[in-house]
């Protein structure tokens, strides 16, 4: 089952620091909501267990996240793979920065989900994923703005 999400966020920080933080696994590790057992593997990749909640049912996914391509100072791609609770997912996402203080971050993500979670269908998953993604980007935005102060 395929899912596409996109959006944009405005971050009150210079674009160079936004870019370097968004491609820094150690920084991203601090912004993951509901994450346990986080291991930063190297400068551009990490592993973690995250809790995914759909309605009242929550399941745990072991994810691996890696910065796969960079085109500084504006573009980068990230790949996330996740397994757990009978589900598998592969997400490829990318972002593009423009402007500076505020920096506009345009992002998009394409997910391929199989197993139990796929049964929920894209209409429903999109609703829940949009909320979760908004929460993640809010966290990232806040953390970058904190650092930039």
């Amino acid at each position: 089952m395929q899912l596409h999400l996109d959006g944009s966020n405005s971050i009150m920080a210079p674009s160079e620091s936004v870019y370097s933080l968004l491609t820094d696994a150690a920084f991203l590790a601090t912004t993951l909501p509901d994450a346990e057992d986080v291991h930063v593997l190297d400068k551009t990749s990490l592993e973690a267990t995250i809790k995914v909640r759909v309605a009242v049912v929550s399941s745990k996914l072991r994810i691996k996240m890696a910065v796969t391509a960079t085109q500084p100072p504006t573009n980068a791609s990230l790949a996330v793979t996740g397994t757990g609770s009978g589900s598998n997912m592969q997400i490829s996402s990318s972002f593009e920065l423009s402007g500076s203080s505020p920096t506009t971050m345009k992002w998009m993500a394409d997910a391929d989900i199989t197993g139990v979670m796929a049964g929920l269908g894209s209409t429903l998953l999109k609703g829940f994923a949009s909320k979760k993604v908004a929460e993640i980007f809010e966290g990232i935005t806040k953390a970058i703005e904190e650092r930039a102060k």
Partner: protein
Amino acid sequence: MEALFDASVQEVSRLLGLTDAEKSVLEDADAAASELVTSEFESYVQRKYNDQVPVILRRHNLMGVPIASKYGGRGARQLVQALFMERMGQVGMGVVTFADVHQCLGSLVIQDWGNEEQRSRYLPRAATGDVVLAYGLTEPEAGSDPGSLKTTFVRDGSSYRLTGSKYLISNGSVATNMIVFAYPAEGGKGPSAFVVDTKQKGFEVDMRLEEKVGLFTSDTSLLSLTDLAVPKEDLLGVEGKGFSVAYSALLNGRIGIGSGCVGVMEDCLNQVRERATSRVQHGKPIGKHQLIQKQVAFIESSLESCRWLVYRAALKKDEYEKDISNLALRGEADRLSAVAKYMSSRSAFESADRALQIFGGFGYSIMSPVAKHFLDTRVARIYEGTDEIMELKIASSVLGREFEAYR
């Protein structure tokens, strides 16, 4: 816009014409439906009333879709109301039930039967959502046969006093006002219709009926009225003519329910398309197995046959609205609304069942969106006239009034 809904809107626009204002109602409906998806599913899983429905409809200015613009509503004709309900049906029958009762059984009845003072008092607030309406016909001892209602009224100076019990009332415990039907205690004439204030002394929510087979996200209540004072200004229509009010409400409501069921079939089709093309068994997507295609073909054919049936009923109602003294037109609208509701509710239920089958074991999980439709849609074959009552009504419309079997 969601693709199947967009296709419906485009087709109706091309063949029948939609104004910009009408298209904007439907764009708002699409945005509201997308926003409703998560709260509706969360409430369903928790088996509780979805209190976000009025909040989100209000945010998109959709509480008063059929209310005339001079009273603050969107002034939608029945055809546009049907399209609106179609999109709500994709989210689920819980949303459809809330909107159908508040708008088709409640607001439209006040608009059609109320005097100018009543319309000005209720409709602007119904359009904003400050007034939420319920419709109280059914009682513990009177369902398919409203002639056996036990709720009564007595005249008391400048008011009426109502006593009785209303059962299985949608929006019953969340409504600010309810259309109530009651017979005169002294006997004689037919029942009368009243707009009752649910905050008045004597109005009691006896029980929220939560142990249902489905439709958890819709409020259903058992209510009691004990010597409830209703000012004379809240008599709706003419005393003794309550059945005319009740049946005209059901005519509107059945088109609404039929349209909601079309939306259910659309969502079932969306869900099975995704599942059948991605789930692999025996080395290929299950959609390549012919017996799965048979189920998909059934859902698609049901959807296509019911969609225009519902629009046709809505168009007939719109035609009647322009010529309200034409009883033959009213009869036609009544017949078509019964046919539309009868066919769509049965087809939606069967489509949900077949969609569940395509999903296999996961389809049987409470977490499956098609299982939600399966549970929620069953009631559409019961409320606002059961399958059997629809069959009797449709048959007598063909055979003649002297064949009305429920008389």
